[in-house]
């Protein structure tokens, strides 16, 4: 463990376990984003409700692969002799499908991210890191301070790096939103796509408005996480890339 330091240095710098979990989560998130996009390319249609497929209406169709509106279907047959009966048709088109490795990589990375995330949150709660560094203090809620922080972000006036957890009020809210809302939401909606888990825990599809709705929410929550990553990296660059990277990696003293 790190040798005891004076108080200023201790609060100034990122802790070793924060750095380690930061980079494990970064690597697994990159693997999840790439494999997730490959999986989406296989069936770039999103639905609302319990089920959806090529023979039912989509909520959104995304032009992200040659599978987009491919139209390679036999003439459909009705299951029942009534108007508006559900139908069946055979697919005649060779679709793009790389889900063999895509799904396996996605789940492997999801295990790494989830287990690291649980360890991070538990350590963060018991060490006081989350309360001390991420939860805004009462005085930070003042209208003047929040307004000042919003204005400086809008005007792209980013304060220089501090080499440690000294966060602005918007930054704190964003980190809390990512850690306690977006990441748990992607994990829970991801689990809701599993047939074994929905059989064991039938409440899962219910809380997300259906199993296909969970997939749609999973897509939007993941997109929000990618947007967070872009903004986060932009801020790191604007506030001093070398100093920030050094603070999040091997830097020992300020």
């Amino acid at each position, binding site marked *: 463990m790190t040798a005891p330091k004076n108080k200023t240095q201790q609060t100034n710098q990122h802790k070793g376990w924060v750095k380690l979990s930061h980079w494990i989560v970064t690597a697994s998130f990159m693997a999840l984003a790439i494999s997730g996009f490959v999986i989406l390319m296989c069936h770039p249609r999103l639905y609302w409700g319990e089920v959806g497929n090529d023979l039912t209406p989509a909520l959104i169709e995304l032009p992200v692969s040659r599978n987009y509106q491919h139209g390679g279907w036999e003439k459909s047959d009705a299951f029942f002799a009534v108007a508006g009966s559900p139908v*069946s048709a*055979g697919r005649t088109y060779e679709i793009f499908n790389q*889900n063999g490795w895509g799904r396996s990589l996605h789940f492997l990375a999801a295990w790494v991210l989830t287990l690291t995330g649980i360890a991070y949150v538990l350590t963060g709660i018991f060490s006081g890191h989350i309360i001390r560094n991420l939860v805004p203090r009462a005085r930070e809620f003042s209208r003047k301070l929040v307004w000042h922080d919003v204005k400086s972000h809008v005007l792209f006036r980013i304060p220089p790096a501090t080499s440690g957890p000294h966060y602005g009020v918007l930054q704190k809210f964003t980190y809390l939103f990512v850690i306690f809302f977006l990441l748990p939401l992607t994990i829970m909606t991801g689990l809701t796509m599993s047939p074994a888990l929905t*059989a064991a825990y039938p409440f899962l599809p219910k809380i997300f408005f259906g199993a296909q709705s969970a997939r749609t929410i999973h897509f939007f929550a993941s997109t929000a996480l990618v947007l967070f990553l872009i903004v986060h990296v932009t801020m790191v660059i604007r506030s001093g890339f070398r100093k920030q990277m050094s603070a999040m990696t091997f830097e020992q003293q300020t």
Partner: protein
Amino acid sequence: MKQHKLFTRRRAIITGIGALSGLLLPGCSKKLPPTYGNLLRMGDAFTYLAHRTLLPGQSLAREYHHGDITSFPAVGTIDPGDASKPAHNETYGRFRDNGFSNWNLSVEGRVAKPGKYSLAALQSLPARTQITRHTCEEGWSAIGQWTGVPLGLILKNAGILPSARFVNFYAYDGYVDSIDLLDAFHPQTILAYGMNGKALPIRHGAPLRLRVETQIGYKSLKYLERIVVSDEFVDQGDSGWAWYVGI
């Protein structure tokens, strides 16, 4: 200042490794599918172990109402009798042209009474009808009604031996796959000959297909030919697709 931590990083890592090895320990026996030294397959094996260790066994998948039945795409092989396709099987073509009247399912391997079941013989056994959600690995899903014989009943009738651990399926379109006994004896794992109140259509796997409702769609093999019960995992080589897909 004295260090005051509830648990150290070292202790957290040691606890984590201990918990992981507890889950991976059964991997030492030959009861598990091989991972081919492949990191992706190790991830899938870990998912399998985690599901088998942490999930309550044999929970029933949700069953829907007749009005919930949706349109249902047919993908993969849609007719093994089609001579223009690589999955063509001449024997299947002959059965298809006879309306499957002389077709039969062979049940063999580690059973006391191996035998063959005609379609009529299967239909004379106690049937189960279920309206369930089919979840395809591609991302889509559909609700359909399936009628068939519980696989557990066939296995019990055949006298499955106590050492048996896996049930292997061989299909006319060349697909081979297997499931463990927990899924094989799951009440909703059936050999289906009916779909949506009619005979199973050819594009959905006529005359007989498997339904494994707690796994992804590709485990529910169509066009069944043979069922072979085995003590150990029968290695078909790494297909590039996960063997266990409860996820």
